[in-house]
C-alpha cells in the first residue's frame, strides 16, 4: 500500500515492481443526493471541489465530468502562469492563485512541476511599451512582482530572442514577472483529483449533465447520463460549455465559445529558459520539461465547439514565431490541437451567483484561466459554501455587465494568457 508520494515510497515500489500503488482516485457510483455538485472536471472544477472539502468541510459532493477529467481546456493549455494584470481586481485574484501555486504541489502531495522560470511580455512599439509600463507600475503598487526590461535586458534573459532593429516588429523592451512560469497541466488535474477524492469527493467521469431541475427559482437537482441527482447547490465550471449549462436554468451569459489552438515542436535539448509572450506578433512560447516547445496561437473569430481551429492561424503563428526566434525555423511542429475557450466581453472571468438560487457560475476565463486555477477554485468554493462572494470574487459578478462596471483587461492585458 502506498498512498503517500515521496522518494522513499518510489524506491520501495521500485523494488516491488510498482505493484503497490493505489488508484489515485476512486471510481464511485453516482449517488442520488449530494450537498453540492460541481459540473466540469477540469482543473477549476476539481480545485473547487478540493477547497469545498478542505476548507468548508463539504465532503458529500461530486464533480461530474462528461468525458475524462482534464480533457477540456485543462488538458490543452500552454500552462502559462503569471499575475501581472493591470486592474486591482485581476491582480488580486491572479496573485492569490500564484501564491497558492507555489505550495500546491506540496499541499496535494503531487509534483505539479511548478516552474517559476519567469514570463516575458514583449513590447514592439511605443504604444505597447506605454501599456506595459503602466502595468508594471500598477503591479508594483499591488505587490505583484513585475519589472520593465529594455531590449538588451530581454536578450540577456532570453538569449534566443532576436532583437534586431530591422525586424518588422522589433523588440523594444518587455516586462518580466520572475515568479511567473509554467507547470504540468495533467499533474495539476490528477493531483487535485487525488486530493479531492481522498477528502471524500466523488469524481464521476463519463457523466454528462443534461438538465437541471429547479423549483420556485431554486436548484433542486440535475439529470445526467448516469442518472439523476438531488442537490441544493450546483457550481458550473464548464469552461467552453458554460452557456450550455446556464441555458438549462435560463441564465443568459455574456460568453462566446471560440476555438483556441496550441501546438508543440519535437522535443529538443533546453533552448529557451523562460516563457515569452508577444501581443503585436501574437505568439507565446515556452519549453516543456520534456523538451517540446509549447506554442500558443490566437483564437478563431467565430463560435465553435469543435476543438479544432483553422490552419491559417497555425501558419501565421509560425511566421510570428520566426519573427521573434529566427533560429527556430528548422525545427518541426509535432502536434497541434484546439480547445474551446469561453470568452467574456471584458476578458475577465465571471464568478457569480445567479438569479437561480443555488446555481453558481464560474466561467469566462477565456484564453487565460489556467493560471488562476487554485485561486479560482478557492474563491468559488467560498461562494458555493457561503452563498456570498468573498472580496476577491466580488468584482467578477454577472451584475457588472448590467451596471457597466467591467474589469476590462483586454484593453490593457496584452495577450491574455
Amino acid at each position, binding site marked *: 500500500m502506498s498512498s503517500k508520494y515521496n522518494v522513499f515510497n518510489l524506491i520501495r515500489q521500485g523494488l516491488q515492481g510498482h505493484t503497490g500503488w493505489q488508484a489515485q482516485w476512486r471510481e464511485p457510483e453516482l449517488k442520488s443526493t449530494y450537498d453540492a455538485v460541481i459540473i466540469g472536471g477540469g482543473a477549476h472544477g476539481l480545485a473547487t471541489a478540493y477547497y469545498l472539502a478542505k476548507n468548508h468541510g463539504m465532503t458529500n459532493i461530486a464533480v461530474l465530468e462528461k468525458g475524462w477529467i482534464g480533457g477540456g481546456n485543462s488538458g490543452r493549455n500552454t500552462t502559462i502562469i503569471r499575475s501581472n494584470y493591470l486592474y486591482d481586481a485581476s491582480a488580486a485574484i491572479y496573485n492569490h492563485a500564484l501564491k497558492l501555486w507555489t505550495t500546491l504541489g506540496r499541499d496535494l502531495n503531487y509534483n505539479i512541476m511548478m516552474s517559476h522560470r519567469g514570463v516575458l511580455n514583449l513590447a514592439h512599439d*511605443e504604444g505597447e511599451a506605454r501599456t506595459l509600463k503602466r502595468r508594471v507600475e500598477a503591479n508594483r503598487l499591488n505587490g505583484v512582482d513585475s519589472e520593465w526590461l529594455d531590449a538588451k535586458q530581454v536578450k540577456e534573459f532570453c538569449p534566443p530572442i532576436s532583437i534586431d*532593429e*530591422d525586424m*518588422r516588429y*522589433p523588440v*523594444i523592451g518587455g516586462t518580466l514577472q520572475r515568479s511567473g512560469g509554467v507547470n504540468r497541466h495533467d499533474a495539476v488535474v490528477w493531483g487535485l483529483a487525488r486530493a479531492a477524492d481522498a477528502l471524500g469527493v466523488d469524481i464521476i467521469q463519463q457523466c454528462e449533465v443534461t438538465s437541471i431541475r429547479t423549483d420556485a427559482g431554486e436548484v433542486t437537482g440535475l439529470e445526467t447520463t448516469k442518472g439523476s441527482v438531488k442537490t441544493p447547490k450546483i457550481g458550473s465550471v464548464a469552461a467552453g460549455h458554460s452557456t450550455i449549462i446556464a441555458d438549462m436554468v435560463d441564465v443568459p451569459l455574456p460568453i462566446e465559445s471560440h476555438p483556441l489552438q496550441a501546438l508543440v515542436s519535437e522535443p529538443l535539448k533546453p533552448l529557451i529558459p523562460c516563457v515569452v509572450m508577444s501581443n503585436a506578433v501574437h505568439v507565446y512560447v515556452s519549453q516543456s520539461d520534456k523538451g517540446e516547445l509549447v506554442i500558443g496561437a490566437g483564437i478563431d473569430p467565430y463560435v465553435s465547439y469543435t476543438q479544432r481551429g483553422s490552419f491559417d492561424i497555425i501558419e501565421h503563428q509560425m511566421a510570428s514565431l520566426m519573427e521573434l526566434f529566427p533560429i527556430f525555423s528548422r525545427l518541426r511542429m509535432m502536434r497541434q490541437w484546439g480547445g474551446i475557450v469561453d470568452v467574456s466581453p471584458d476578458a475577465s472571468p465571471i464568478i457569480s451567483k445567479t438569479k437561480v438560487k443555488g446555481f453558481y457560475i464560474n466561467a469566462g476565463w477565456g484564453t487565460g484561466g489556467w493560471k488562476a486555477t487554485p485561486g479560482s477554485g478557492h474563491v468559488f468554493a467560498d461562494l458555493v459554501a457561503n452563498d456570498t462572494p468573498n472580496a476577491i470574487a466580488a468584482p467578477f459578478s454577472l451584475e457588472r455587465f448590467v451596471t457597466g462596471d467591467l474589469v476590462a483587461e483586454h484593453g490593457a492585458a496584452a495577450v491574455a494568457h
Partner: protein
Amino acid sequence: MATSDKLSETLADRPDRLSALSHRSPLTGDDGLLMREATHLGKLVLRLAETEAETLKIKALEGAGLPTQPCRSSVSHTGTVSVLWLGPDEWMVVSQAGTEEALQTRLHSELSGRHFQLSNVTDYYTCIDIAGHQNREILMNLSTLDMHNRTFSAGQIKGSIFGHANAYVWQLHTEPGASEIFRLIIRSSMADYLWCLVSRSARLFGMPEDTPISGEKLVI
C-alpha cells in the same frame, strides 16, 4: 479590344506626378515573364443600387455596361474604359491615365438625380501587371483564389487576400494568342509590399527579387 498597359503610358502633362511604385523598375523573367506597374490608370469607384444598374445605360462608359454578374468586367467599344464588378452595388471604372476627371464629371451629370457615389481612387490604387505564362502560378503563391483557367478567365475580377494585403486581381482581355495578363489592383500604401512579394514568388522563373522597404531605424 485591349485595355492593355499601353493606356497607362500616356501620362497627363503635369508636374512630377509619381506613381506608388515609381521607385521600382519593371522586372523580367523566363519565357516572357514580365511584371511592371501600370501607372496612373484612371480609377473611379461607383456605388449604385444593384437594381438600377441592371437597366442603366451610361453613355460616358462608351458601351461598357455595369456588369451585374459577380466578378465580371465589361469593356467599352473603344477599349479604353473598363467597368469592373467589385460588389453588387460597387464598380470600378478604369480608364486611360488622365481621363478620370473628365469621366467623373460626365458620369456625375449623367447619374444626377439618382442615389449614387462616385469616388476618384486613381491614386488610392495602383496596378501591377503580370504577363507571361507562369503568372497564374505566381499568383497561386499569394492567394487562395482558384487561378485555373477553368475558373479564372479573361475579363474576370476577384477581390481576395494576397499575402497579407487585400487586393483585386483582374485578367485583362487580351488578343487571342497573346500572353495572358493579370492585373493586380492594389492599395498604394501596400504597393511596395506586394511588388516584392510577387517578385519573390517569381524568383523561380528567373525574376530578380526586390526586397521591401524596411530596415529603417525604428526606435531609439
